[in-house]
């Protein structure tokens, strides 16, 4: 109990320190000023979107909505489609049990197929997350794929089986919090090193920037047997952490929903 209290205090101190650090940086970098002088892209959107004489106007004072549905509307359309298809998939799987209030355990066929698909889904999700810096995909995509595996187990075998595999609510909360915390750490290390050594650096900086900042993450390591392992600086690290945060987050949500609705034991 004592060590847990100490951990909570440590977490609180670290959160406050991070907040102070972020505020200091934002003020120093002039991001929170009202002049917009150092952010030409934002300036362009803020001027062009509400201006009826501009070729890029949306005739709207709300720039964020305009960008989402107008300047990059195509992207938003496909995001919406993906969400739609995901919900159809969830409804389909949830409906397989058949009928309302039917708590019978599914037949042998979904039981065996779920067991075979579980490792396949997880292997694919890890591959999608680990190669996010090389091929389409990444931490969020991989994490979303991962969540399908525990969802199948939840539907076919019920929550107890899933908890027996280590997918317990407190473990999931811990993994998710740790991953999100480490994302902040990875994103601020270069800035902290810059502040300590008096070199200019940025928040969430990856590679060194010529003429702006001489420090940054390495892009690859040379392996003992001579090969090169490219991880693109923060990209692969953040993808792994994002994968952890998203997969545990989605699984947690499913477990909690199952708890609240009573599940199918």
């Amino acid at each position, binding site marked *: 109990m004592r060590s847990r209290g100490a951990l909570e205090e440590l977490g609180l101190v670290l959160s406050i320190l991070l907040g102070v650090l972020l505020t200091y940086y934002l003020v120093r970098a002039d991001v929170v000023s009202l002049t917009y002088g150092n952010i030409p892209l934002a300036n362009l959107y803020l001027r062009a979107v509400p201006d009826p004489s501009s070729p890029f106007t949306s005739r709207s004072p709300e720039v964020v909505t305009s960008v989402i549905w107008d300047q990059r509307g195509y992207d938003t359309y496909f995001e919406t489609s993906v969400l739609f298809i995901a919900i159809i998939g969830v409804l389909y799987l949830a409906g397989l049990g058949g009928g309302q209030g039917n708590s019978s355990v599914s037949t042998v*066929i979904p039981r*065996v*197929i779920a067991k075979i698909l579980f*490792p396949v889904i997880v292997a694919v999700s890890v*591959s999608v997350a680990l*190669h996010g810096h090389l091929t389409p995909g990444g931490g969020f995509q991989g994490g979303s794929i991962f969540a399908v595996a525990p969802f199948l187990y939840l539907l076919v075998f019920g929550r107890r089986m899933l908890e027996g595999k280590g997918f317990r609510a407190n473990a999931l909360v811990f993994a998710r919090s740790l991953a999100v915390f480490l994302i902040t750490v990875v994103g601020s290390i270069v800035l902290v090193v810059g502040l300590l050594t008096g070199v200019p650096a940025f928040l969430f900086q990856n590679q060194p920037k010529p003429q702006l900042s001489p420090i940054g993450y390495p892009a690859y390591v040379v*392996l003992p*047997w001579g*090969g090169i392992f490219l991880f693109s600086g923060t990209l692969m690290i953040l993808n792994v952490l994002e994968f952890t945060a998203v997969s545990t987050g989605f699984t947690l949500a499913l477990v909690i929903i199952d708890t609240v609705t009573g599940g199918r034991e």
Partner: protein
Amino acid sequence: MKRLLVVGLSIALVYLVYTGTLSVVEVLIAVGIGLALSRVIGVDLVKDESKLSVRRFFEAVKYALKYFTVIEYLAHYSVVKAILSRDPGLKPAIVEVPYYVNSEIAVVTIANSITNTPGTVVVDVDEKRKKFYVHWIFAEAFEGEEARRGVSAEFEEWAKKIFD
């Protein structure tokens, strides 16, 4: 131990095939993920470790080769013939087919083998009475041994050799 390795390396193979690259780092990652997953769900996939054997594996390979060439060809041929002929001779019915295997995975192997060949689809399974309910477009019998001979006898032999 055998279970951990067999399941782990199978998962590693799935990872490598999906990833599509073969380097030392990828193989190490694949084996790591495979073994970790195998520790968590290995018991679900392999209930009886003593059943893992090279002989059963080669039986499975032999079955896969025969199923996806000869058996699939014959089933497709009879359905294509029925589609193209003036008098297709259809006799669609849902028939009751008994099975005698015990392990879950053998039951699913038979059910999938039936469904994957054109002309027959498993619509339900009664695990207590050990019966499949199969929609068969050329129903020769409605139940018992006769139905089993026409629908699943060969699949069951193989499933018994591989899994039971």
